[in-house]
């Protein structure tokens, strides 16, 4: 375990290397929050409800999405793993007694950790300035279940994106393209852009059987109290099933990919 903690700590230090880059990155984040806030304020300026959401509900939803995604979507592994497979840097890890997947999981968590620290500061400041009305579930069970589904989603996201990236083992030239498509799909189907219950019921129930809504939509919806406790529990169970499936498949692809890698070498 200690080795992965050291990886975590080094990654954390690494993030601070480029100060300007760091500041710009945080600035971009604040801009994004502001834009989302203004957009929905504009939508609700002339009416009280849209898409079945009241103004407070919608602002709460997007606010929470922005917080939740700082932990779910932040993943430097998405940008690096494909490249390391292509150019052979993967070899550096393969000769050592360390798990490559856990190595990158640790690096991702370092980035997420940093993200959440700054996100909390930024959101608090913005909240103080704009004082949007927010509405969360008052039932602590909802909050607890929501947080668990959130954390499960973080891991599911890791394994899902790694599955996309492992395509590099077979098609070294195409990693970024495939990753891009997967990310776009993921943003839409996870509820990052809009709450999924604005979709037709058919589409909603179909989406239930994909891993995507468990990444953002369900944790957020549970936290704002959209579902009954029983329903929330059901989604927690299903999110765990997805974690299990994606973990299994990612491991499988990794092992198959390694076979190809060590047959051809890079």
């Amino acid at each position, binding site marked *: 375990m*200690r*080795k992965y*903690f*050291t*990886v975590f700590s*080094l990654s954390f*230090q*690494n993030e601070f*290397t*480029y100060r300007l880059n760091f500041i710009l990155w945080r600035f971009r984040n604040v801009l994004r929050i502001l834009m989302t806030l203004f957009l929905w304020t504009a939508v609700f300026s002339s009416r009280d409800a849209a898409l079945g959401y009241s103004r407070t509900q919608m602002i709460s939803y997007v606010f929470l999405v922005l917080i939740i995604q700082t932990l779910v979507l932040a993943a430097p592994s998405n940008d690096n793993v494909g490249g390391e497979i292509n150019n*052979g*840097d993967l*070899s*550096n890890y*393969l*000769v*050592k*007694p*360390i798990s490559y997947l856990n190595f990158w999981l640790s690096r991702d968590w370092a980035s997420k950790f940093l993200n959440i620290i700054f996100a909390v500061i930024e959101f608090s400041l913005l909240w103080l300035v704009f004082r949007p009305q927010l509405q969360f579930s008052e039932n602590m069970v909802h909050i607890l279940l929501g947080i668990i589904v959130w954390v499960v989603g973080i891991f599911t996201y890791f394994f899902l994106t790694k599955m996309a990236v492992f395509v590099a083992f077979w098609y070294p030239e195409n990693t970024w393209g495939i990753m891009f498509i997967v990310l776009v799909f993921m943003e839409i189907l996870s509820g990052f852009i809009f709450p999924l219950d604005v979709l037709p019921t058919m589409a909603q129930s179909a989406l239930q059987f994909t891993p995507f809504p468990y990444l953002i939509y369900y944790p957020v919806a549970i936290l704002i109290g959209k579902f009954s406790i029983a329903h929330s529990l059901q989604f927690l169970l299903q999110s765990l099933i997805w974690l299990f499936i994606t973990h299994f498949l990612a491991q499988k692809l990794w092992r198959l990919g390694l076979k190809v890698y*060590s*047959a*051809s*070498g890079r």
Partner: protein
Amino acid sequence: MPVIDIKNLKKYYKVHQKEPGLSGSIKSLFSRKYYDVKAVDGVSFDIGEGELVGFIGPNGAGKTTTLKVLSGLLYPTSGHVSVLGYTPWDRKPAFQKQFSLVMGQKNQLWWDLPAIESFILNKEIYEVPDAQYKKTLDELVELLDVADILKVQVRKLSLGQRMKMELIAALIHSPKILFLDEPTIGLDVVMQKKMRDFIKEYNQRFNSTIILTSHYMDDVKELCQRVIIIDKGKLIFDGALDEIVKKYANHKLLTVVFDKKVDQDKLSEIGQVKEFNFPKAVISVKRTAASMAAAELLQHFPVADLNIEEPQIEDIIREVFTGADVA
């Protein structure tokens, strides 16, 4: 018992062939012609504990492929490979803790952090106890004289300094076996020499087994009692460096400096004139006839100075590779 044992190792790659140009690219989308590249084609050797072996051959000879098989990055097409009793490509942690692979053209150090951080990470990865880590690090830092740059960002180091750090990172777990793939590539002569001294010292002090590949003959000449030469995937020589000379160089070189002008045609009667640039001439003669030829030169020519030399190892090896008759 040898620490490294390779029998009849073969590694073929499937490579697809692309016709030149855009039309070739489009064609290759639909049908690809594959052919086998025989990177390593039936190589056998074994290496005992504490040996420092030079592994040489031209580009594409199969050196790096062999090292990659030995370190478990590649599995072979066929053949038997055992390193410290392990099958490398099982990648067992117990095996991985006992060797290190350094590739001169790849780095493992974290670019944006001081090298010391990468050392700490490797300490944890290899689960080196604190006391042993401190002792090893101090020893290596002293040997390589890098105490003052440990805390400098890796990106700010010169290539030579970085290579030293790469070596430390690779040695922090005191590996029994060290694979060095072109460790001196791109370094200036002073730094090359320092690296060599270090490798030699390390080998002697810790009795570690080292396989070294290099394009620089000086590396091999200075470091290795034994060399393995491969070319086009096949082993063509395995033995002491002087043996190459005996085996392949059946000629010696006479370097003569003359007092007065001499007739080049007359010189040709003594041996093959490789170089004639008055007052100096280099004549290649049969090894067995060397002293006779020297006597004859002294007797019949106005000789100011005479030297009998073995041909340069570089020349011998180059000619072995090109298949030419070795002079």
